[in-house]
């Protein structure tokens, strides 16, 4: 079910501005890979190239290769819609669809992709996804209430349920806890622990303790100087990054001596 991702010689552009250059990394299946680094270093941009969401921004494009189990997701005959169905994403701010109920939010990816499904099948998906997101017990009695009525942490778990309902192979998370309180953050981190049994997870975080807690592998991105493109400084097992980093810049950043 889970797949590996290989990125080779990736350059990311916004129009004529080169935001990230020369990224090469591998994401192992059924593991959590964390992207850390200062703001503006391009870690979110790299994340967004992994499911071709980057190109949604007018003028944005990439060069280089992104391989999903050896298959180039940027080759000309690949449909970005199919890529995004295989690689799901959770965003920084919880954003359930405001016009939909909790149930409709979970099934949105299924009901809007065109294929017809029976009601019973959808019911199963709703329960399975909400259980998968540790939200079922809290919302099972109010599935027909608006998704926007939940608390922030619940909304974010609803967004995770929505993302895993389409059964992706990979789950991308762009700072999923930065808008949440510590208790909701703990709930999401517990959830990540469970999800990595089935999914390949890539998480962008500003919180280094979080990276240390949840990830097996950590990639450190940095900006060499203002106006220059961001770079991948190093990628290594999380333990090694936090105890014995290979680069001085990494050590400066994780020990707070940065800048």
């Amino acid at each position, binding site marked *: 079910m889970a797949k590996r991702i290989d990125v080779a010689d990736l350059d990311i552009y916004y129009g004529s501005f080169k935001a990230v250059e020369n990224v090469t990394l591998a994401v192992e299946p059924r593991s959590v890979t964390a992207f850390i680094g200062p703001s503006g270093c391009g870690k979110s941009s790299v994340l967004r190239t992994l499911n071709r969401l980057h190109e949604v921004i007018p003028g944005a494009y990439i060069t280089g290769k992104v391989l999903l189990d050896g298959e180039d997701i940027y080759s000309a005959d690949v449909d970005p819609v199919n890529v*995004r169905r295989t690689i799901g994403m959770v965003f920084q701010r919880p*954003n359930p*669809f405001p*016009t939909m109920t909790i149930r409709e939010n979970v099934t949105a990816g299924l009901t*809007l992709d065109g294929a017809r499904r029976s009601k019973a099948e959808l019911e199963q998906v709703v329960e399975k996804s909400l259980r998968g997101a540790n939200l079922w017990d809290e919302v099972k009695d109010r599935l027909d209430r608006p998704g926007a009525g939940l608390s922030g942490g619940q909304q974010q778990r609803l967004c995770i349920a929505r993302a895993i309902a389409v059964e992706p192979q990979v789950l991308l998370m762009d700072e999923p806890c930065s808008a949440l309180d510590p208790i909701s953050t703990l709930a999401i981190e517990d959830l990540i622990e469970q999800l990595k049994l089935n999914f390949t997870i890539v998480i962008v975080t500003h919180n280094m303790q979080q990276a240390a807690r949840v990830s097996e592998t950590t990639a450190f991105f940095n900006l060499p100087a203002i106006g220059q493109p961001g770079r991948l400084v190093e990628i290594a097992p999380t333990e090694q990054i936090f105890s014995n980093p290979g680069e001085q810049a990494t050590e400066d950043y994780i020990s707070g001596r940065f800048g």
Partner: protein
Amino acid sequence: MATVGSGKFERSTSLLQDALAGRRLPRWGVGAVGLTSLLAAYLLNVLTVVDGVAGTFLVAVLLFVIGQTGWSFTVEGRRHAVDRLATTTVYAAFLIAVTPLVAVLGTVLVKGFPVFSAQFFTTSMRNVSPRSEGGGLYHALIGTLEQVGLAALIGVPIGVLAAVYLVEYAPEAKSRRLSSAISFFVDVMTGVPSVVIGLFIYTAFILTLGLPRSGFAASLALAILMLPVIVRTTEEMLRLVPRDLRESSLALGIPRWKTILKVVLPTALGGIITGAMLSIARVAGETAPLLLTTFLSQSINSNPFKGPQAALPTFIWDQFTSGTDASRARAWGGALTLIVLIMILYAGAKVIARLTGAKKS
């Protein structure tokens, strides 16, 4: 020592109290100043050159402002005086803004309501002389409903789709020429007088293409008039939909067009409906384009594609220019009907928006 100390302490307490509480005008102060001003204005009316209701009232307001601010300045100090002056100004501005609205509604209600009867809504003006009472606006009501309905059917989809193009597709088009052309012409169209639009339909469709004068020709003109309002409001509403929402829909593997149709448009629906209703309300009262495209009719014609058709604005104009007491009364009745019609449409649209739009917990 002790007595001196406590004396100082007492004085500072009273000073502190003074500083915090300050001295205020009595509660009845505002009312008293108001009454005195009215009374003084009335005296001036009787004794001096101040004349008329409006003039007297204006003098009363001026006296009130001067009296209250002056009294407050001497008792409460500068800050409170300015506060009272500003408060009075804000209330006055609000009253000035609301007065014409209430006056129009009140006048139309008082003059229009007596004409209302079952007959007024079920008969036409066919074979009713302007001098005689009776007759009705059934023909005009049908005409307005059909013309405005057709105009909305043509104008709303085109306007909404144009706005969808401008917001969702234009930013990534290779050339900005089309989108800037659309934006430019939408702006220009906002400023084109309705009579010019009517003239355009008259020359293009009736003279050049040889189509008959009809309610449909009128609805074409009304649709053109509606377009800029709909495009602009829909554009603004679509821009308010957070980028995150579009991206998370795309990230679920939902195709672009379905993202727009099922996520973006429903989220913006409340505002889009409000914009559409505003434009409908605006064109429902248009008279000039109707006179050029469908002209007048005194009889019932429920086919908008053939022959002249009446409408409420032209009915009001026709009845008013007839100049008899009976016809003027009918004109007021027509005006009240038009206002009520627009209110019903607006309330209906709000209900639809609430049922289908963003859900609140």
